[in-house]
């Protein structure tokens, strides 16, 4: 986590972007989502955005990002205008209103390599870096991406990671906590301990699909019911565990920005590989992805629990009841 006091030279972003460009420019990448959700004040930050005029019936993450950005005061923010969420446009515009420098970035919906290359090169021009420098950073990051992949494998194949650990280390790979070297060290230290552990033996294996949860204790609650998450879909995507030739290839294989069908292919492959018993589909309250639930329910052959979260905090009593019933249904 970056020190909020030292924000010069930091570049915020609203969802994963080619972070290699920011690093090549010698700047510190900051995923505003991580700043928001790990803050002790996350709940108040949402209230602050509502006080500023964000509607109550809009996404909690967007509201959290707004305040997180004002608190962090990054040098600039890269806002993903296509491939994430249409609310980002208004988020970007209201940040701009508060004097934040904004650079838009767009993932082409049709996954076209040409269009993606064009967007990447636009970003490279903004940060004044060339292909050679960016490719060097990409190569430098390959070992840490491989570490993430190994950590994920230890989760599902050797059953040595808790649900939360899998979530935490993979979700952090979107910005490597601002410092890839330090993050690599953290991972290596963690590995040393994990390898000595006895494998976990929970009765139910779950897949978690959808954006990371806004709940703070979801994974702990799931494990209290003798179940474990062995697949965190989007968090894993953040670590980009792909065989690829270059930066364009890498961000083209990344599924998250390209809609439900791109994600579906990846999900199908992973749930088969990891032998899960059921799927939790998490969606944010008021999010368009709640509509995409129709597709996942129709195209995936495992029991699905669709969960919804609005504001940061602990899982509410009703959601707990639903998770408990779902896990029990899978047990018997």
């Amino acid at each position, binding site marked *: 986590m970056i020190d909020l006091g030292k924000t010069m030279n930091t570049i915020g972003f609203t969802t994963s972007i080619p972070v290699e460009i920011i690093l090549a420019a010698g700047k510190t990448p900051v995923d505003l989502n991580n700043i928001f959700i790990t803050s002790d004040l996350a709940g108040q930050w949402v209230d602050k955005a509502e006080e500023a005029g964000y509607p109550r019936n809009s996404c909690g993450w967007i509201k959290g990002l707004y305040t997180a950005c004002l608190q962090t005061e990054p040098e600039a923010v890269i806002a993903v205008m296509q491939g994430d969420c249409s609310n980002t446009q208004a988020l970007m515009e209201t940040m701009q209103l508060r004097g934040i420098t904004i650079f838009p970035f767009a993932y082409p919906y049709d996954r076209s390599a040409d269009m993606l290359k064009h967007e990447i090169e636009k970003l490279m021009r903004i940060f004044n870096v060339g292909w050679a420098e960016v490719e060097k950073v990409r190569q430098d990051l390959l070992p840490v991406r491989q570490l993430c992949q190994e950590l994920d494998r230890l989760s599902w194949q050797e059953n040595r990671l808790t649900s939360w650990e899998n979530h935490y280390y993979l979700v952090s790979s979107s910005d490597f906590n601002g410092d890839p070297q330090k993050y690599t060290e953290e991972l290596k230290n963690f590995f040393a301990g994990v390898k000595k552990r006895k494998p976990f033996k929970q009765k139910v294996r779950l897949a978690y699909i959808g954006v990371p949860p806004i709940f703070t204790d979801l994974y702990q609650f799931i494990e209290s019911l003798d179940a474990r998450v062995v697949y965190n879909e989007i968090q894993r995507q953040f670590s980009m565990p792909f065989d690829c030739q270059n930066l364009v290839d890498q961000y083209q294989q990344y599924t998250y920005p390209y809609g439900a069908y791109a994600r579906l292919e990846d999900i199908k492959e992973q749930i088969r590989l990891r032998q899960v018993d059921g799927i939790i589909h998490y969606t944010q309250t008021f999010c368009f992805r709640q509509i995409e639930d129709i597709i996942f329910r129709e195209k995936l052959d495992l029991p699905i629990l669709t969960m919804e979260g609005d504001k940061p905090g602990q899982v509410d009593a*009703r959601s707990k009841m639903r998770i408990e019933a779902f896990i*029990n249904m899978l047990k018997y």
Partner: protein
Amino acid sequence: MLGLDLGSRNVKIIEMHNFDITAQLSFDTIEFYRSYGKTGQGSLRIDLSELGFKRHQHMVATGYGKVSVQVEGAIHLPEIQAHVKGAVYQTGYQDFTLLDIGGQDTKIVKVRGGRAVDFLTNDRCAASSGRYLENMAAVLGISLQELSGYSLHPVELNSTCAIFGETEMIGKIVEGVPLAELAAGINYSLYRRFAGMLERLASDVIVVSGGVARNEAMINIIARESGRQVMQLPQAQFNGAIGACIYGYEKFKQE
């Protein structure tokens, strides 16, 4: 055997001996917690010995999760399982869709071979529950029983929000829409709130439980709109508590 269903509006208790119901009680939830509950260790603790039931009998509790309420001496059964067990026991059916419209939530469970295979519930908002009918009946100044007599010629009520629904209905009253059409409109609007979920988990037979199962108009509407066989459980409100007892018999027989 005692089965307890800790619902959001009512607490239901069933006592069984050899599968025969020997006592059934229903309490207002708030009053029940006030009279028999004590807070301790972050959750409400309930002692049933004060209610006059024979001590030392097996007890199974369901309803709001064990994380929220601890019943002294009881084992806990998740709500969905309790309702499925109760419905299988009461109907003798193995394959059906259970529609439980409770005080503050609606649960729809697909049951195959006597077991839950999928379920959906309303999320976050109680607008698709019995509470909505209570509120709207109060606005019209009629009882729930009277409300349950009307299913024909419903007036269109569109609001997603139950509170706005009230405002919308007052508007209709002002327009001079007759009471029968208003009441039918209320029943229809509740149906529409869960119809999508019901269709997604549909079976040839739909078994209705929960307090709203006593609403004849609702049963008529579900049958008419879904074109499926609809069955009211004989003990609709006590279904969860009955299921808890049945689970208790299975569980303690094993031991």
